[in-house]
């Protein structure tokens, strides 16, 4: 399609024909205030917040729904446009409870933001406010009707993206509110996204309810580790505790969404039963002694590695090098769950492989097995078992290996009392990359401080490799990744800089 040139707020903008004024303004760094518009949803143009002045148009135009035209001159912040938005904001607030001090959305509320930016300082509304009770919508979602601005993003998400029309607008006029259809609940595996989509405090997460104020949170870009999809996320912590996961936009992976399973499965990142210091046969040891003990355990025995597919590419790369150097074998197993697609988005699903880096584990030479118990049962005292952060939930039989080395966040009970334990960080406490099921390599950043003496897995493995006689002097994860990219053709040319926060697909 041809490009169109227009002027928005005095700036020249070139965009493809058919682009909306709102999206065109974004490219020039101009935000047109809006509520009902969302780039992933159909455009109803009903909040009337994005009204802008288009020269020669008789009326103000909704920027979300009006296409650009050549030589158009658009004013977003003209007196006329601002007056109209001020009018909308006043209308939105007349029946709003103004209960920001007790509202979870406070601090990340678009009603708050725009009202501060361009709303009236006072209200002319003297009549009683409309009242509706709070309603449990099922799933993780609670509806506070009084705060609702009827933007219908939630309705459109459920109908047009989730293809599970649970929500609707019922009643008319100022009695209108969002309702569930009879005998329906927000139990769709992706329904929790309505909380994110809600621009105000009307749809809230029951899980996050009253837990923290938005401004108390620290945020780090991350990747959801709970399945092979690799949804981009933001980890939010308060006082070094993960309190909420939210989707982060990546048009190529998860658009604006993440599933409820991924969203709510974060408590393990805050586990209290972690190993926090290195130990040898139950005795606390400092790091150098513990690494030496691990090398001793490996010496003269056949190396068998049981690796977690939740480990980073960096960790699996180094672990793979250790296996190769010592002529050992590496296995991994993947927890399973039902696949749950989001129908309205192509190739987006909660995958049945419930671990972040299955692809990485395969690429770095580990063999996928359905039942690790079989492998463990076959070990003899000529073998050494290296357990890399694999707990094997439900497993209890101690393997008959000659020695056991645990490099992980916890020490599984079935490893007994004799292993060398090297404590590591979990994915929220380190920086690294995962490779998703489509081969997209994506970075995640550190969100919280690790407990005790635990160190990132790549750092522990670097020390082990060095002690085993292999040069592996990596100080930061980007150096490990650079080495990885240099030695694996499918990663060639990649670096943390080129991956940035959107990732890249392996060759």
């Amino acid at each position: 399609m041809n490009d169109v040139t227009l002027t928005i707020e005095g700036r020249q903008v070139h965009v493809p024909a058919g682009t909306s004024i709102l999206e065109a303004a974004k490219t020039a760094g101009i935000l047109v205030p809006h509520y009902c518009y969302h780039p992933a949803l159909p455009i109803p143009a009903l909040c009337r917040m994005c009204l802008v002045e288009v020269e020669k148009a008789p009326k103000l135009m909704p920027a979300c729904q009006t296409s650009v035209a050549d030589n158009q001159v658009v004013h977003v912040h003209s007196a006329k446009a601002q007056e109209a938005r001020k009018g909308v904001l006043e209308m939105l607030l007349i029946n709003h409870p103004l209960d920001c001090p007790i509202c979870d959305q406070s601090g990340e509320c678009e009603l708050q933001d725009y009202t501060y930016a361009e709303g009236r300082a006072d209200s002319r509304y003297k009549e009683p406010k409309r009242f509706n009770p709070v309603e449990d919508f099922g799933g993780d979602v609670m509806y506070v009707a009084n705060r609702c601005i009827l933007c219908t993003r939630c309705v459109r998400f459920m109908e047009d993206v989730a293809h599970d029309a649970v929500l609707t607008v019922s009643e008319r006029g100022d009695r209108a509110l969002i309702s569930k259809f009879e005998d329906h609940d927000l139990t769709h595996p992706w329904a929790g996204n309505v909380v994110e989509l809600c621009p105000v405090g009307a749809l809230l997460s029951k899980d996050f309810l009253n837990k923290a104020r938005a401004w108390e949170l620290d945020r780090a870009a991350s990747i959801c580790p709970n399945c092979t999809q690799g949804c981009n996320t933001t980890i939010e912590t308060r006082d070094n505790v993960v309190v909420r996961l939210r989707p982060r936009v990546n048009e190529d992976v998860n658009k604006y969404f993440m599933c409820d399973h991924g969203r709510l499965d974060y408590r393990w990142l805050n586990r209290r039963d972690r190993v926090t210091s290195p130990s040898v046969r139950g005795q606390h040891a400092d790091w150098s002694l513990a690494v030496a003990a691990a090398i001793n355990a490996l010496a003269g025995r056949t190396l068998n590695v049981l690796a977690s597919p939740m480990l980073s590419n960096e960790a699996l790369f180094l672990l793979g090098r250790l296996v190769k150097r010592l002529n050992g074998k590496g296995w991994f197993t993947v927890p399973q769950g039902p696949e749950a697609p989001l129908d309205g988005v192509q190739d987006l699903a909660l995958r049945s492989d419930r671990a972040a880096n299955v692809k990485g584990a395969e690429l770095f030479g580990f063999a996928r097995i359905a039942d690790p118990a079989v492998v463990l049962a076959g070990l003899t005292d000529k073998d050494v078992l290296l357990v890399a952060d694999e707990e094997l939930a439900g497993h209890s039989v101690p393997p008959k290996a000659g020695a056991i080395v645990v490099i992980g966040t916890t020490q599984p009970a079935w490893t007994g009392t004799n292993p060398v334990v090297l404590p590591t960080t979990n994915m929220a406490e380190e920086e690294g990359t995962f490779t998703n099921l489509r081969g997209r390599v994506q970075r995640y950043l550190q969100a919280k401080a690790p407990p005790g003496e635990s160190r990132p897995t790549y750092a522990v493995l670097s020390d082990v490799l060095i002690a085993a006689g292999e040069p592996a002097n990596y100080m930061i994860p980007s150096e490990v990744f650079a080495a990885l990219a240099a030695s694996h053709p499918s990663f060639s040319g990649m670096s943390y800089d080129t991956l940035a926060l959107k990732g890249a697909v392996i060759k």
Partner: protein
Amino acid sequence: MGYPHKSHARETPVLSQHFGDTDAISLSGWRQRGGYRALEQALGMAPVDITNIVKESGLRGRGGAGFPTGLKWSFMKPGDGKPHYLCCNADESEPGTFKDREIMRWTPHALIEGCAVAAHAMGAETTYIYIRGEFTEPLERMTAAVKEAYSEGVLGKNALGSGKRIDVHVHKGAGAYICGEETALMNSLEGRRGNPRIKPPFPAVSGVFGQPTTINNVETLAAVPHILNNGAEWYKQMCLSSPKSTGSKLYSVCGNVRRPGTYEVVMGFPFKDFLYDLCGGPPVGRKFKAIIPGGASVPIQTMEEAEATLMDYEGFVAKGTMLGSGGVICIDDQQCMVKQIGRLARFFAHESCAQCTQCREGTAWTTKIVERIEAGEGTTADLDTLLSIADNMTGKTICVLSDSCAVPVVSGIQKFRDEFMAHITQKRCPYRTTPARSAAA
């Protein structure tokens, strides 16, 4: 004719000629009165010729907007491989308007004939007549008439033996004013919530079921057979004023008036004569104070304005209002204007579809303020607030329901400010003898 009164000598009964005539309801009765001659003629004509005659006649949409009918029909492009639809808007819900109801009650076959002619002219294979949910009697009449027309071979796959297929379906609405808005009507017809759609796309491009659609008012369609029977020139002659307004127009008259009912006069008829001569003027001992000439959503006229008005599209605009749907609401000097305006606002607040913010919140807010003023609890600042809210509600929403609510408030405050001030200064309604209920209700 001035149904239920006798026809007045100055009326021009064309559409209303058979109102009250129970024999005209049946197909045979309708045929005896010249019915279906126009359709027979139309089926033998090229569609474009029919459209041209309608264009030539100057017929304009009778639903309120006054868009030239022939021009609207010409937007339809038959033969583009898509199904085409004609919708007849029989969701007559504008307060004070009941002209379409009379057409459907007394001359259901006139509407069917009009629909069939229009469908043929536009190449519309299917016609839907969307009838307001509260119109139980017109619904019965129309349903029976359509059934009769099918069984007599007027409609169906071989309409009047012409070999052409014309299908007409009657659809009952669920009783929402907003479904009279053409795009909301289409949503409702499709089984969706009756919310107006954003335009563009316009119905002629994407209407019912996303297909090219034309939507016409009952009265518009019912006029078409008369134009074919008598010629465009005959229709054009029915005009006493502006040549842009032609033909006869039905008016439904209600309120404080001696002879309420449905009247039919030619375009450009003097409104003063209409009110005092045809309709008999105000009740004995009273005077007209204000007139709402075109249904609830047009500006209120003072008597000075009304008495100087010529009844056509341009004439009403020249006197500060609009022809609208032709629903004439008469208000006499014993009525409280604040109460009347509050009642109108309450109607719009009830009927707002709740999509656009200004309409959803503004209509209800306006109602609360006007009712509070009426209860004697208003201030002068409230009047400024009302005008400011009205400004925010005008020209900023998907459809014009919001504007319609602002119209009586703005025109009311402009023209009857002294009544608002009397409520504010006396802290009571001057027209009430008993104390008002609290406005908080």
